[in-house]
């Protein structure tokens, strides 16, 4: 298991999750969990995905998702899980 956290922040629009998931499926990245909420009028989505069987490099996924975000008009970040678990779990 090689977990990454994908976050999407921005204005809500049709098909955000669909497009992110389509890209992840193409690259054989398995989605483990999705949650979403609206904070202060902004669409916030967090996705936990498993990078273990991915067919491409982590850097490439980061760049591709960032580009996809720009296209949709939202901000997409892809980070390794450890930065969050280290900070919030003892």
């Amino acid at each position, binding site marked *: 298991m090689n977990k990454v*956290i994908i*976050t999407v922040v921005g204005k809500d629009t049709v098909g955000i999750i669909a497009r992110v998931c389509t890209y992840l499926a193409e690259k054989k990245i398995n989605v483990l*969990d999705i*949650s*979403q*909420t609206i*904070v202060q009028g902004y669409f*916030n989505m*967090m996705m*936990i995905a498993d990078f273990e069987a991915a067919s491409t490099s*982590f*850097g490439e996924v*980061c760049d591709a998702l960032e580009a996809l975000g720009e296209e949709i008009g939202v901000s997409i*970040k*892809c*980070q*390794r*899980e*450890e*930065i*969050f*678990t*280290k*900070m*919030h779990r003892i």
Partner: protein
Amino acid sequence: MLNMFEVIETNNMIEHEKLDVRTITMGISLLDCCDSDLTAVNDKIYKKITTYAKDLVSTGEEIARDFGVPIVNKRISVTPIALVGGCACKSPEDFVTIAQTMDRAAKEVGVNFIGGYSALVSKGMTPAEENLIRSIPQALAVTERVCSSINVGSTKTGLNMDAVKLMGEIVLATAEATKEDDSLGCAKLVVFCNAPDDNPFMAGAFHGVTEADAIINVGVSGPGVVKVALEKARGENFEVLCETIKKTAFKITRVGQLVAQEASKRLGIPFGIIDLSLAPTPAVGDSVAEILEEIGLERVGAPGTTAALAMLNDQVKKGGVMASSYVGGLSGAFIPVSEDQGMIDAVSLGALTLEKLEAMTCVCSVGLDMIAIPGDTPATTISGIIADEAAIGMINQKTTAVRLIPVIGKGLGDTVEFGGLLGYAPVMPVNPYSCEKFVTRGGRIPAPIHSFKN
């Protein structure tokens, strides 16, 4: 499993509160580069640095991308050059060639600073160490990325007042040698008491002789994160205030620990320490002064400043210690004037004086840092300021340091621009009364009584 609010909190810290890892510093021992031939020493130093640190910058960038946290600086510290070059260098000019080699190596591997043009003379100076010290003005004038530090005292040895006197002259000579750039050379020169062997922060970083062949030390930052956390604790009592600082420091330090372990693993070099410091930058919202003001001071320098800083410093350590397996370096709140917008504002308003800054250094790391003073300040006065600061370190068993910039050609009312992370500073007044007869006595101030603990 992680919840969304934790993820949002972390990303807000990074995106809006300027959480970053300030530096990954690779310490490299150059003791095996000693040789009696100067050319051979230079060749060995260049080769060792460029071999060990060749992937430092790219690895730092990869880690920053993987975790989505900025790593601002990638730097190198080396064994004090007075030890490495002692056998080959017969004059200050010989030492300057080593500074140039360090500069070339730093540029080759892409780091922005390389520290360790240093001498540890807390009790006495060898001829080589004196030559190195005398070479500092020229070395810092002809190089761009080399940083120099001199340790002139310690709790165990007392203060080497001959070195203190000499360093007053050297600080002034460095200012003169770099006067075309607003005496910028002095921003790369630190005079220490109780200098730590594993400090990752410039300009005072060097790789102590107690260290391994190579080591990774990491300096974290995050004044902005503490400031924002404290905004939510407005009007609360000290218990709540302290808990908030500790929890925030823990979170910040965990990021540093993660980055340090990852860098150590990827570079194949052991992890040394995390330096738990609140290191400000000139950017608004990245200021230690703003934290103190959030705690309840109208301006930094107001009565209560020293107490507020003492509390802040202690809570940062208490929160940070549990977050990391090894802590070291300077560890505490930095209070550089030119690198902190809140400090600059307080000085401009007359709220913060040199004397108050000196008092503040009793309770935090590190010392009188990045303070511009008039260019016509006598060398003996600078030595006196160094002696005062070193005495605070010696008696309180803590690291203290002086990084003063006597700006040649400028006086009160002028402002100096250093650029980048070094910021800008209004020239501060210095007490006009002389300490020449004190400074020129010569010899040593003995170690304090409480240093005899054996």
